[in-house]
């Protein structure tokens, strides 16, 4: 049975496909995503407060490498099998090498409902995964071309909403510790699943609006949107095992690897690679991969993690 938050997504998709007169105000969507980003950041920060940061360094390096690797893999597939142009291939690849915070939130809710524990500092990896894919994507098209305005780009990426709020939340949680955070936690943690439900309702409406452009871009994108996350999840799960993560942590890392960005990367690509068609990457990321991950993917990735961690494994 699907978690209720996922049913909210389904409701949004259905309403969108039926062209129902349902439109959440843009301000509400912005606020919901602010709440999710801060909640996730705070949660991770509280946990980070309890352990020496440098012990995480190997994991951070490993996860960043995963982001680079997945982007290259996706680029190769899109160029060779999909016959996409360089810009389009690089832009889509950057989406898939990066992460989706919404998918992460659903994974957290799913593991929670199944009482599977995981390393609570995972939000750190969300931050770590945001950036490398973007850099690789740009390099794939521009090389180390002088013309690229790296300063402007770094600003756009590192100071985009997602990273600022995730990192801000991490730092505030880390500096305050669980006791001091508790009173603000009523809003951020207590309402987490409700906020997520509303967010997914809106995501459903948005996803539905992407299906139209999907029809134009055919089967390859559809296949890619399902197979790429599976490949990503496999890489992520193996890396998780190798880094010594718990079953839950492995499943989360697999989910992060499987997820594709629809906030930070699209914004960066519009500026860095404007010649790439933004419709393609959004349709794949929002119209296929996001729905796939939150309905079928996450349970699968947990099973994957459990199988890898099986006693005789």
């Amino acid at each position, binding site marked *: 049975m699907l978690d209720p938050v996922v049913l909210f997504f389904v409701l949004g998709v259905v309403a969108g496909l039926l062209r129902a007169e349902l*439109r959440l105000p*843009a301000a509400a969507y912005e606020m919901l995503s602010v709440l999710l980003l801060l909640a996730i950041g705070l949660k991770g920060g509280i946990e980070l407060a309890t352990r020496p940061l440098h012990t995480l360094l190997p994991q951070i390096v490993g996860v960043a490498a995963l982001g680079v690797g997945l982007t290259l893999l996706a680029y190769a597939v899109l160029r060779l099998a999909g016959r996409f142009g360089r810009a389009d291939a690089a832009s889509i690849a950057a989406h898939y090498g990066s992460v989706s915070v919404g998918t992460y939130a659903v994974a957290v809710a799913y593991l929670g409902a199944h009482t599977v524990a995981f390393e609570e500092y995972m939000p750190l990896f969300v931050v770590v995964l945001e950036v490398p894919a973007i850099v690789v994507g740009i390099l794939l098209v521009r090389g180390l071309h002088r013309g690229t305005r790296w300063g402007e780009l770094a600003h756009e990426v590192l100071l985009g909403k997602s990273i600022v709020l995730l990192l801000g939340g991490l730092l505030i949680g880390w500096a305050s510790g669980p006791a001091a955070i508790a009173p603000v936690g009523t809003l951020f943690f207590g309402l987490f699943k409700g906020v997520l439900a509303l967010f997914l309702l809106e995501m459903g409406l948005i996803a539905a609006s992407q299906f139209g452009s999907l029809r134009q871009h055919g089967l390859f994108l559809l296949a890619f949107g399902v197979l790429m996350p599976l490949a990503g999840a496999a890489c992520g799960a193996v890396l998780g095992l190798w880094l010594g993560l718990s079953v839950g942590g492995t499943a989360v890392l697999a989910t992060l690897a499987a997820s594709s960005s629809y906030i930070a990367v699209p914004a960066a690509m519009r500026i860095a690679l404007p010649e790439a068609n933004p419709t393609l990457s959004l349709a794949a990321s929002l119209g296929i991969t996001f729905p796939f991950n939150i309905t079928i993917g996450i349970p699968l990735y947990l099973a994957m993690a459990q199988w890898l961690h099986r006693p005789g494994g």
Partner: protein
Amino acid sequence: MQYHRRRLLTIVAEASLESALLRDLERLGATGYTVTDARGKGQRGVRSAAWSAAGNIRVEVVCDAELADAIAAHLRERYYEHYAMILFASDVDVLRGGKFSARSD
């Protein structure tokens, strides 16, 4: 009533261009601008404003004819190929001509 003739340039473009566009306008010498959030449809499809980056902005600049031409030329050069954007210009009458251009009259 003593009016001065100026040009009103209206630009509709995808919202992600906001900061770049406004920076360009200032650099080219506009004395001001007015921005509203918008949605719409054009050659690059529906822009729905469901979330802010998915929407458009509508920017108005009142300036003299020369600057209007310079801005239009710059935007065509820099943004037309790859971004959702339209631009139209018309004559308007203002009270304080000096407010909208370098030269005063």
